């Protein structure tokens, strides 16, 4: 069942079109992450869903009801903001119970629900404190508590973890997902952090320039990015992208001559354009590249090595400008300046049309 639907949704601020026709259906109980770089329109889409901004064109539906003209309080949604947006003059308890108070719920009912939410989030004992007396992590929990107390149909998250330190962010990320599962809620989560999106979401929607680039389960986006933007955006370290031309096809294999020198063999997945004319971009994930001194196909020189303990990122240069990153779990003993050869399995090479950016 569709809980939140977008049909041809556009948003203009003056002459600038920020959303250029969004079509998306968020299913009931689904956790959808909207990701993209700054200015891609993800937060605007969330604000349209919340009713904080008006839709310029198209339809937003919530639980089957057209919500375009509904004020925020009638949409049965709750939102967690990046800055938490707690009311500084209210105690934690009053912050959490404010929405219920505005709905004129009985005081006893409010107290009981606030207490229950506080217990869930480990905030009991803090209910009489003011937000300024709390740590960043506690404030974040209060913001979550304020949302869950209302038991809304849809949770909207606007980069709620970006003000937390790295360790707390990982911890809270898990809690957010657990909470979502426990409440059986529908969640739309905006983030620019693709790791957060990958770990949290049932489905990721990658946006760029006001347009949905690709929507799908995290691993589908990772394994089969639809276009160059998604290929470059999803994955850390980002996919290595190398310009080249298709030289020829041998059965199921395509031979790609790289502009920088060297070549790659890619598995053919469709019917590519005639050999020699096809300008492509070959994408290879860092973990799919293997250090292979026998290989003459990809020759490069080590620039720097990042040791992470469980793996190492080897940053190398092909030719004089093309950067390439290789992830390896071996203790290689490489040093900057060392010459290395790389190889990759043909089925791990992604090919994109250079002109359109689409996957071949």
């Amino acid at each position, binding site marked *: 069942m569709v809980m939140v639907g977008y049909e041809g949704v556009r948003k203009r601020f003056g002459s600038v079109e920020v959303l250029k026709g969004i079509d998306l259906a968020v299913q009931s109980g689904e956790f959808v992450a909207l990701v993209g770089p700054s200015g891609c329109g993800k937060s605007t889409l969330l*604000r349209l869903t*919340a*009713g*904080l901004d008006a839709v310029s064109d198209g339809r937003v539906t919530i639980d089957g009801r057209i919500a375009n003209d509904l*004020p*925020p*309080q009638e949409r049965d*949604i*709750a*939102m967690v*903001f*990046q*800055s938490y*947006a*707690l*009311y*500084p*003059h209210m105690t934690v308890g009053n912050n959490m119970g*404010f*929405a219920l108070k*505005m*709905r004129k719920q009985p005081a006893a009912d409010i107290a009981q629900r606030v207490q229950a939410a506080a217990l869930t989030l480990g905030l009991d004992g803090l209910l009489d404190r003011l937000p300024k007396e709390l740590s960043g992590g506690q404030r974040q929990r209060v913001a979550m508590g*304020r949302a869950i107390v209302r038991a809304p149909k849809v949770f909207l998250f606007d980069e709620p973890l970006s003000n937390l330190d790295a360790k707390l962010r990982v911890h809270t990320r898990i809690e957010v997902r657990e909470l979502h599962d426990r409440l059986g809620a529908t969640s739309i989560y905006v983030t620019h952090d693709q790791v957060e999106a990958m770990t949290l979401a049932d489905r990721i929607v990658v946006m760029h320039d006001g347009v949905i680039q690709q929507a799908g389960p995290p691993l589908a986006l990772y394994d089969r990015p639809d276009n160059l933007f998604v290929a470059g955006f999803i994955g850390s370290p980002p996919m290595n992208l190398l310009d080249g031309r298709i030289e020829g096809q041998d059965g199921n294999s395509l031979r790609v001559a790289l502009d920088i020198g060297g070549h790659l063999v890619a598995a053919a997945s469709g019917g590519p354009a005639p050999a020699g004319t096809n300008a492509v971009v070959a994408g290879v994930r860092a973990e799919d590249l293997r250090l292979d001194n026998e290989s003459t196909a990809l020759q490069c020189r080590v620039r720097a090595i990042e040791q992470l303990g469980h793996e190492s990122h080897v940053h190398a240069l092909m030719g004089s400008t093309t950067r390439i990153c290789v992830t390896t779990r071996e203790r290689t003993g490489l040093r900057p300046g060392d010459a290395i050869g790389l190889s990759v399995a043909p089925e791990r090479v992604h090919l994109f049309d250079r002109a359109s950016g689409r996957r071949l």
Partner: protein
Amino acid sequence: MASFASAGLRLAGRGVVFGYTLLILAPFVWIALSSFKSQIQILTNAMVFEPVLDNYIELLFSKSASFHRNIANSLVVAAASTVLALAIAASAAFTLVRLPLPNWLRAAVFSWALLFHMLPTITFVGPWYVMLNSVGLSNGYVGLVLANVTHHLPMALWIVAAFMRDIPEEILDAARIDGCDERSSFMRIVLPLVMPGLAAAGALVFLFSWNDFIVALNLTAAATRTAPVAIATFAQEHDVKYGEMAAGAMLTTLPALLLLLLGQRLIVRGLLSGAVK
């Protein structure tokens, strides 16, 4: 050499501070001392004297005493002006800062307020008198309060608006999602958050209304005369009652001084809001 120069500068700086303090304090001390002197002692400029309370007694408890009524008038006018100015300033600032309005309109209102505040008060006194007189309000509290509010509203508006701009947009977004319309987010969220600004603006409006002489002189009659105007009446054609004047000035200063001491931090914060984060 350098340390000599900087020591000299520091000394000069202190000299300026002490000199300025003296400049402000000396007349005040003179008035305070005069209020405890007899008329003869004042006129002979006696430096050594036995303090007497005659001036205060004459001012407050003599048969013809009306100064307590003047103080009460001042209190009524200043308090009413403050409440009214704050109510208008807060709702106007909310409308101008937080509601969707064309930018030119916002700029026009704030610029006009600033310009109005820069014009000398005396410019308005004549027109106000004519206007209020024509509707029969020239001798009562209402006319004076309206004039004070008009006069001090721009300052209050600027101060409260600066505080309102500091409220993060997301807090008001959260309030809308929690079920607030514009009225309830103003009452429940915005007003409590700009309370320091309201206190600062309120203290200033109160002080300016309390101290106002020129407007009150023209818009009050004997029954509604405020303290500063009453003090001026002690200087008569054949007799200047220096002692009562000084005692009146002291009594008038006290509430203002008290308010200033209590609200000083808020006033400074109010005036600096927007300038420093």
